[in-house]
């Protein structure tokens, strides 16, 4: 850790910053120093010599890119994606594994990024909504299906639904409507737009099979 410009949380000087300043600072610089306020009163201290101790500066495989990022031990993947890597397509709804808005793919499997410590997925492939479209900007078949069917109303839950559906369809490419509903049953829509969402996702599944 000495190689990096990390402040020892025990000795850092508390700096008065607004939350917005801190978030902007972190996104802009990816630097730990801006986040040191989070460690006030912390009893945790670095135990670099202990077996299994983790470094804060890690490399994540996100949407096919290697992203170097400074990650707090207690940081969730949703926080890292949104506030460190600027991937704000992943939404935070409940932050409690109860709504699905934050769903991302971890090694092709849909999981709630609000309930994953980022350090636990540093050796895995992470795909967010930003990683679905092709390099040329061509939409993923499921995205195209949702667009064609106008599947969502307010859209806040869309990215989570899409990631859950894409993950489900990887292992169940030809589901019935009921099977697909079960596959995305870990996602909530407060607009109660489930019928149209299912129609759109079924269209997307059809496009996926043709692609």
């Amino acid at each position, binding site marked *: 850790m000495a190689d990096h410009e990390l402040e020892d*949380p025990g000795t850092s000087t508390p700096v008065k910053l607004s*939350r917005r300043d801190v978030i902007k600072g972190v996104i802009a610089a990816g630097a730990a120093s801006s986040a040191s306020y*989070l*460690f006030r009163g*912390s*009893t*945790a*201290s*670095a*135990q670099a010599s*202990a*077996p*299994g*101790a*983790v470094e804060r500066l890690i490399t994540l495989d996100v949407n096919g890119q290697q992203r170097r990022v400074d990650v*707090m*031990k*207690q*940081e*969730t993947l949703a*926080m890292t994606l949104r506030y460190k890597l600027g991937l704000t397509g992943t939404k*935070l709804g*409940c*932050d*409690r*594994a*109860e709504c*699905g808005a934050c*769903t991302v793919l971890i090694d092709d*499997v*849909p*999981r*709630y990024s*609000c*309930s*994953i*410590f980022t*350090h*636990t997925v540093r050796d895995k492939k992470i795909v967010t909504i930003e990683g679905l479209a092709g390099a040329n900007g061509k939409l993923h078949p499921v995205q195209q299906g949702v667009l064609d069917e106008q599947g969502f109303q307010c859209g806040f839950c869309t990215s989570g639904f899409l990631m*859950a559906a894409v993950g*489900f369809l990887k292992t169940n490419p030809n589901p019935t409507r009921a099977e697909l509903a*079960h*596959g*995305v*049953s*870990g996602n909530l829509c407060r607009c109660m737009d489930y019928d149209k969402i299912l129609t759109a996702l079924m269209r997307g599944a059809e496009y996926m099979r043709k692609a």
Partner: protein
Amino acid sequence: MAVIRDVIPAFELFQPASIEDAQSLLARYGPEGWVLAGGLDTFDWLADRIKRPTAVVDLGQIKGLSGVRVVDGGLEIGAMTTLTEVVQHPVVREKYRLLAEAAEAAASPQIRNQGTIGGNVSQDARCWYYRAGWPCYRAGGNICYADTPKGLNREHAILDADRCVAVNPSDTAPALIALDAKMVIRTPKEERVVDAEDYFIGPATDITRMTVLQPGDLLTAIRIPSTWAGAQFYFEKVRDRNVWDFALVNVASATKVSGSAIGDVRLVVNGVAAHPVRLKAVEAAVTGKPRNEATAELAGQLAVQGAQPLQHNGYKVPLMTNLVKRAIRGVAGEAA
């Protein structure tokens, strides 16, 4: 409770590569240490700041704790195997379908993709007074907030309560007990194997724990013997909504039929006590009897003997009766 706060308070994170390293870390930190498996129980505790561990020990990097292996005709399921992996495993589906059905009934797809079977059987009570940090018996205090004149106890225990009226929330636990599974526990000194039935404890044994695991112990695997492979199974979970919710009551049974009679049966109900309840008296009463309505009726009535409902959970008595009747009848999904 579900309040979004900026971040979980700081802790030191360890990702040891071996069980020995994990246990030496847990020994070093003692009550300040915290074991992390899938994390679905952990996150609520930490995000609500009810538990403030100094060190979190993540078991995710330990090789050999995950996966399903065929052993001695039965199965050995690593404690870190996800519920989805259990559900999808071909041998589980073919021979121990009871477990696949129970695991599939838990939580939501994303949670099953991350939550482990070891965590599912070892998770803490979900009583909201306890989870919200009230200083109740289970938290080391001297009152039960749920069992008071104005307590909200619709989801609480009807059997075996002792001061604490919380219930065990696991769906896989009753299925594992019905399958006579064995829990492989690594203590700091040795490996020991306990019957799934004895893995879960009630408040009379230790009011602060749900299982026999002592601090520093780790559940490493669950073994399922071939005894009940291919038996007739019944699993049903009743809950308020079909995703996320824990069981109000669930039932798991394994039955071997000889002729038209019940030859051998194991019957377990969860959501009614602080531990899954194996209904041995019912098992004994129905063994040798024909699998018909009269036997089901007898089983249902016998199952709830001694039940002591609280103000708001009286419905659990007929619910448990009917689930036991259905399990004895053995026809999934039919109305009681």
